[in-house]
């Protein structure tokens, strides 16, 4: 805490596995204020590490979920610049569009060498598509987790994206059992009650708790059906709901050890060793 007060989110380490930042090419004049606001709120909540991504130009020059190669590189460059400027609290996902496999693999390698610690996939291709397999093999080689955007119990079509749901992710996870796949934002849209039983018996699928959705029962049932060992905390675009979920985790009957797992220990386990100096799973 910069002001010396107690962290709103409680004591102990805390990793936000699903953060987003903006860049000058995002089409929003307030991009630097948004980044500053996230970091300031993170200080007040007590977030030890933000693991963030920038999805290309956020739609300014190519679609958010179908980024052009140039936007992909620009977004990742900007994210890595945030990491470089905030070495003690920010880490990066490398966000790629898997439709051009060679370009995606080259971008992953470029970003990994510059310090990215995981792969972010969004909605340019469904997760079950074999086109993702080379990227997952890359993830396995370097022990990189994959954070995959999800639309839970997806409908047949969603404007502007080819989203994946838990069924899609589990198909990919079954083909790559050594890779940790994180299903993004169970509070981020779609029906979380469809996700929980779908991933229950797939041990390499983790759930991030982020998203604006704060349905009562969601956290309890996630613990009941999936277990605290495969849940990771995150905020995504709304840090207020992230803080509310931290407070809710304190009152749903979790052991201190389980809370610690969700707050940071599970995340530290799935990233490369040394990704978070001072934290060891």
């Amino acid at each position, binding site marked *: 805490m910069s002001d010396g007060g107690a962290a*709103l989110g409680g004591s102990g380490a805390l990793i936000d596995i699903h953060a987003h930042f903006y860049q000058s090419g995002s089409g929003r004049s307030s991009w630097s204020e*948004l*980044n500053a*606001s*996230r970091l*300031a*709120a993170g200080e*007040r*909540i007590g977030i030890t590490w933000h693991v963030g991504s920038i999805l290309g130009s956020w739609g300014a020059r190519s679609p958010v979920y179908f980024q052009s190669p140039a936007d992909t590189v620009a977004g990742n460059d900007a994210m890595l610049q945030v990491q470089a400027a905030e070495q003690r609290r920010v880490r990066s996902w490398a966000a790629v569009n898997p439709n051009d496999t060679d370009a995606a693999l080259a971008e992953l390698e470029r970003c990994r060498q510059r310090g990215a610690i995981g792969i972010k996939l969004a909605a340019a291709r469904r997760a079950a598509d074999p086109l993702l397999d080379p990227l997952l093999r890359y993830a396995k080689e370097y022990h990189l987790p994959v954070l995959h955007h999800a*639309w*839970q*119990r997806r409908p047949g079509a969603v404007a502007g994206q080819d989203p994946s749901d838990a069924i899609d992710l589990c198909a990919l996870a079954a083909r790559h059992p050594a890779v940790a796949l994180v299903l993004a934002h169970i509070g981020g*849209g*779609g*029906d*979380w*009650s469809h996700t929980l039983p779908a991933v229950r018996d797939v041990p390499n699928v983790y759930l991030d708790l982020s998203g*604006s*959705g*704060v*349905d*009562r*029962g969601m956290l*309890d049932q996630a613990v009941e059906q999936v277990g605290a060992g495969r849940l990771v905390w995150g905020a995504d*675009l*709304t*840090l*207020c*709901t992230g*803080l*509310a*979920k931290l*407070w*809710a985790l304190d*009152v749903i009957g979790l052991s201190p050890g389980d809370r610690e797992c969700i707050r940071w220990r599970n995340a530290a386990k799935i990233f490369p060793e040394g990704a978070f100096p001072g934290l060891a799973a």
Partner: protein
Amino acid sequence: MSQVTVDVSALIGSYPFRELPHPDPGTLVGVLDRERIERAWVGHLPTAFHRDPRKGNESLYRELSPFRNRLDPAPVVRPDWPAWERELSRATDEGAVAIRAYPQHWGFGPEHPALVELARASAKAALPVVLTVKFEDGRQRHSLDVAGDLPAATVRGLARAGTQARIVVIAAGRDMIEEIHWGLTPFERELVWFDTSWIWGPPEDDFAHLIRTIGASRFVYGTGWPLRLAQVSRANLALLPPDLSGAALADPATWRVG
């Protein structure tokens, strides 16, 4: 955070589209204690989906009766139903603090005359009219849940009707709040409040923006319990920038004098 006097958006009872943990008044009182909230205006969730609200209101009064030192009924009055005035009168007799209306569930479009009549009668009875924008995120709704979100036009239409009724809008986000507020005259704005349960904090800082532009006095504290985590509004207040940390929301407890 200092003690909050009233949660305006609490409910009890089951929800047709998913299981809610312990949606009973005893649990609600425990949540109020934990969240340091003195009282709650409490609606009856199943009644939102009934055609005739009379029996649901009876359940509400009955279930709240052991908890009336903390929980105040906010029954449903449906103004296109026969003898609705009797239901409003009963609300007064039962000590209700507000009435809930669900124009979307009843098939009312904006500026429906029955809604205006309800507001006029509610103003006479000194009962605020509570309008709910949504119960759930639109991306997860059941295929039978097709009423849709309350349009801003419905709220504007009601506020412009000159009924003098206090209008409390539950679960509106920034866009809707601004569309309503800036679509009213300064005098009309003074009769519309928004609960805090569905407004985003950092990094977008919608809540801070609205307090700076519209003013804290246009907001009332709401949790959306038992559908939503009661902690969200507390988190939003806690994350306000330091210069807004003392922002005082409106206090509906002061409205009871009527």
